[in-house]
């Protein structure tokens, strides 16, 4: 199994929408490398013929009747939003109208 570099940590942090300063990047690189080294012990096992387990029950495609039901009141849901306006969640401007 591969190990992880500081560049790798920066790449993964971006994927995870996290950001670290140089010191934190260094710290996470060392810690993740150590944990991945330990996880490398799984390579001792031959698993080519072993099927994966995603969860333990043989459940597939559990469905429920397609019935229209009311959802939570909009104002209750928006009450937890950091910013809400006119019945919507508010976010920083995404579309630049100047261009």
């Amino acid at each position: 199994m591969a190990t992880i570099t500081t560049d790798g940590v920066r790449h993964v942090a971006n994927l995870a929408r996290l950001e670290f300063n140089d010191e934190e990047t260094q710290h996470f690189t060392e810690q993740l490398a150590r944990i991945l080294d330990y996880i490398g012990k799984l390579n001792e096992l031959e698993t080519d013929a072993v099927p994966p387990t995603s969860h333990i029950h043989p459940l597939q495609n559990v469905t429920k009747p397609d019935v229209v039901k009311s959802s939570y009141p909009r104002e209750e849901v928006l009450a937890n939003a950091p910013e809400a306006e006119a019945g919507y969640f508010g976010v920083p401007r995404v579309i630049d109208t100047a261009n």
Partner: protein
Amino acid sequence: MSLYNLTAHALHEKLKAREITAVALTESVYARIEAVEPHVKGYLTLTKDIALEQARAADAGFQKGNDMPPLAGIPIAIKDVICTKGVRTTCASKILSNFVPPYDATVMTKLHQQGVVMLGKTNMDEFAMGSSTENSAYQITHNPWNLGTIPGGSSGGSAAVVSADAAICSLGSDTGGSIRQPAALCGVVGMKPTYGRVSRYGLVAFASSLDQIGPFSKDVTDCALLLNAICGSDAMDSTSVDMPVPDFTQSLINDAKGLKIGVPKEYFAQGLEAEVADRVHAAIAVLEQLGATVEEISLPHTEYAIATYYIIAPAEASANLARYDGVRYGYRTENPADLLNMYKKTRSEGFGPEVKRRIMLGTFALSAGYQDAYYRKAQKVRTLIKSDFDAAFQKVDVIATPTSPTPAFKIGERTADALQMYLSDVMTTPASHAGLPGISVPCGFVESGLPVGLQFLAAPFAEEKLLRAAYTFEQNTEHHRQKPDLSSFLVEN
């Protein structure tokens, strides 16, 4: 003996006979909380107004002579990872510091149908990631048996408040051992039901293929009563299993005759403290004397369980925690430059170091080029671990092991070394991979006075066998009657 010392089943008899009121009981528990909480720090939020209202409602039912459910009027604490309508639910994270759920988790709806009294929300490792409750963004919870030690985790608050008699019982959640390990370290009963037994609707998601809600209690009888209340399939959780739920109190049978107990040699290997091994062996011998047959078994893939867990759980967590983006609920950074900057700053400021570590680990394990080598590999090893248990349960009814390789460790002892902390879960994660039910019951003390837990595991949906084994052990020993000495903090009135 004060009311707060008692079990739910003993209190139910008193409530039913109208010897006591639920309001008096609730006041008694809050007086205890006031006395011990400054030292234990198990609660993040107390809900006394709600509790007294619920207690009055229960009393009204008892006064009318109604046939009240076993948990009516019983004061119970809830881990702060379970959504409670109108009551702040933080997951001990800064990112959810102001989150007030607009709905109840299914387990809360079920408890309210019983008429319970909700005392408050308990401390935990942030998003249930940890083994000591030291990863809380808010406070350190102290083990009532020795305030310089951790209560275990991640449900450390729920375990500590039951141990300190600051709740009659509580709910926690267990992903890799987060109910069983703190139960062991705090000297109380804790059970993780089979994956799928209890609805996860309203349980804030950590690792969705592993998470399960379960009870903490002062004895096995209360454990059965809580299971009766919370188990059952739910249309709101498609992974809850549509299986009949037995009356678990029928499994409270004080008889070990014919019970086949397997003792896996891998759990008594290096890393297990000698005193812990001694207490667990002595406990198994008690059941053998009572007519159980004991045989050594092998679960050969045990040593791979932690490595497997620290791929699967972080991978699922990295996906589940993507929802915390500062848009719909929770914390948002101040003055972000743009949307992407808002996501990154919100998450980097809102999550603590362990949560970031797991998101990083999980994102890496699922990233392009690594998914087969890590996540897929771990899922395959998970199959091997599960197969070990399948084979074992062809031969034995229950498996008996230590719950934790050591008693409670000192606050701060393992925080510097993430991997060392992860290895705390070595006895509990294998069963989590296989979705098995597991229970931890007190089985004695090491010389320093800290409690030791005995873990029983059974095949999926065989909770009844666990309860019988645990109940028989409890009824023939006195360990569960021991209480931590918190008398120096008590102001008796």
